[in-house]
């Protein structure tokens, strides 16, 4: 199992470490739901060293990505970031990613569990394009600082950069703890916050300085368990749950990340997704359930005797005060306010359909 340079830091902080995407990562330091509340009310610090970080350069870098991902990369302004999906020919997802436009290239953050497969897929589709694909995962550290106090905390350690002026889904470079750092106003929590990328050997020092700078704001380290609840509350897809080789981005509701524009040219999955868009059969929605059972992936949803959908991800949601889930529903059941039942081995629990997200401070 791989470890980030913060492995010891997590152990010393009382982190419970588990295998995730081939990495040994903290799932929690304390109660998961307390960590969720900490990020919603104050701020939390996350180690994202496991996420794949890939750089694309060469004259055809942009054109190459426009062939491979759903968003229109050539149209992303330099300094901006867009969500996109990497699809197979059948339109189903190999991975989802964030695409960062640079002056002379493109940077992407991909899922840890898919990093090697994505790199192989990308390299096999270079063809005659002039593009250099560089895996920067091992040499860099990536941290996320998320929550309403993030800007206050980060600004104490940052210079050479206008943090307050950095818009949501924009990136820049600045000096953090004396290091040249790639700073983006992004996150996977539905909160304001930043993601920081810099040389990995400096991570323990940067982590410690951030924790110290954030102590008066109530900053806490946050594990992957809370991260999953936060992203689900924010209605954000997690690969392997809402998106995977059996699910496509159209029905997953991320149409905003798919471009069918002629100028983008053809791309892998375009024809299949155009067909799905013309005639979708299901839609990703949310449910809340007042009962005690937490919906879990694969749980089935019924309207009377008819099975109408299934659960992708579920969690107790401290922010909404109820158990929540993302679910795929057949279209005639995918209506906000509809009353359905969730099956737990024959026992039924009522639930109510609602639009995603359950909560977002950044997407109102």
């Amino acid at each position, binding site marked *: 199992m791989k470890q980030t340079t913060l492995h010891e830091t997590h152990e010393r902080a009382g982190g*419970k470490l588990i295998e995730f995407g081939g990495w040994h990562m903290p*799932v*929690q330091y*304390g*109660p*998961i*739901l*307390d960590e969720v509340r900490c990020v919603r009310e104050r701020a939390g610090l996350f180690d994202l060293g496991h996420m794949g970080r890939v750089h694309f350069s060469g004259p055809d870098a942009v054109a190459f990505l426009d062939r491979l991902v759903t968003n229109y990369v050539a149209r992303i302004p330099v300094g901006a970031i867009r969500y996109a999906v990497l699809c197979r020919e059948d339109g189903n997802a190999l991975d989802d990613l964030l695409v960062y436009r640079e002056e002379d290239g493109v940077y992407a953050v991909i899922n840890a569990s898919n990093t090697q497969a994505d790199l192989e897929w990308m390299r096999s589709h270079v063809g005659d394009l002039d593009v250099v694909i560089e895996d920067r995962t091992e040499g860099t550290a990536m941290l996320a600082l998320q929550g309403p106090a993030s800007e206050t905390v980060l600004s104490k350690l940052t210079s050479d950069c206008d943090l307050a002026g950095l818009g949501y889904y924009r990136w820049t470079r600045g000096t953090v703890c004396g290091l040249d750092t790639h700073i983006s106003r992004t996150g996977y929590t539905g909160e304001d916050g930043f993601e920081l990328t810099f040389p990995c050997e400096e991570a323990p020092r940067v982590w410690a300085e951030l924790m110290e700078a954030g102590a008066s704001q109530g900053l806490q380290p946050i594990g992957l*368990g809370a991260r*999953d*609840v936060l992203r689900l509350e924010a209605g954000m897809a997690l690969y392997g749950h809402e998106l995977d080789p059996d699910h496509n981005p159209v029905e997953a509701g991320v149409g905003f990340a798919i471009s069918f524009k002629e100028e983008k040219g053809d791309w892998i999955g375009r024809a299949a997704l155009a067909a799905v868009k013309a005639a979708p059969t299901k839609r990703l929605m949310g449910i809340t359930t007042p009962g*005690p*059972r*937490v919906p*879990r992936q694969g749980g089935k949803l019924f309207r009377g005797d008819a099975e109408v959908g299934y659960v992708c991800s579920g*969690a*107790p949601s401290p922010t909404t005060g109820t158990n929540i889930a993302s679910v795929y529903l057949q279209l005639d059941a995918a209506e906000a306010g509809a009353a359905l039942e969730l099956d*737990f081995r024959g*026992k039924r629990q009522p639930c109510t359909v609602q639009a995603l997200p359950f909560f977002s401070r950044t997407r109102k």
Partner: protein
Amino acid sequence: MRPDDRKYAPTHEWVKIDGDTMVIGITDFAVQELSNGNDSDLVYCDLPEVGRILDKGETFGEIESVKAVSDLNTPVAGEIIEINSSIEEHLEILSTDPWNNGWMIRIKPTSKSLDGLMSAEDYEKHLAAAH
């Protein structure tokens, strides 16, 4: 050392003879695995109806934490005659006292035999070998 007045199953349930009945619960290890040491991570315990007949090894309920669900399996066959419904409202009992107040079901056993189950010492070895 865990209590030696009972027997243990490899799936981390315990069973204790109490007169003509047997009481079943889960071990501290099971609770720790589910909650990662944070009792507020336990969110629900689904217990069965009184009167249900269980085969040895049958799933009689489920326990849920924020991240996972685990089956509760009976180490012995019999009829359920009582359940500890106070657990459903007070899951923290499972962390603070899994051996006494954290009992889950009481059964009228089909057989008095606890053959095939582990002593506290053997359960200790089982955990050491598996983890």
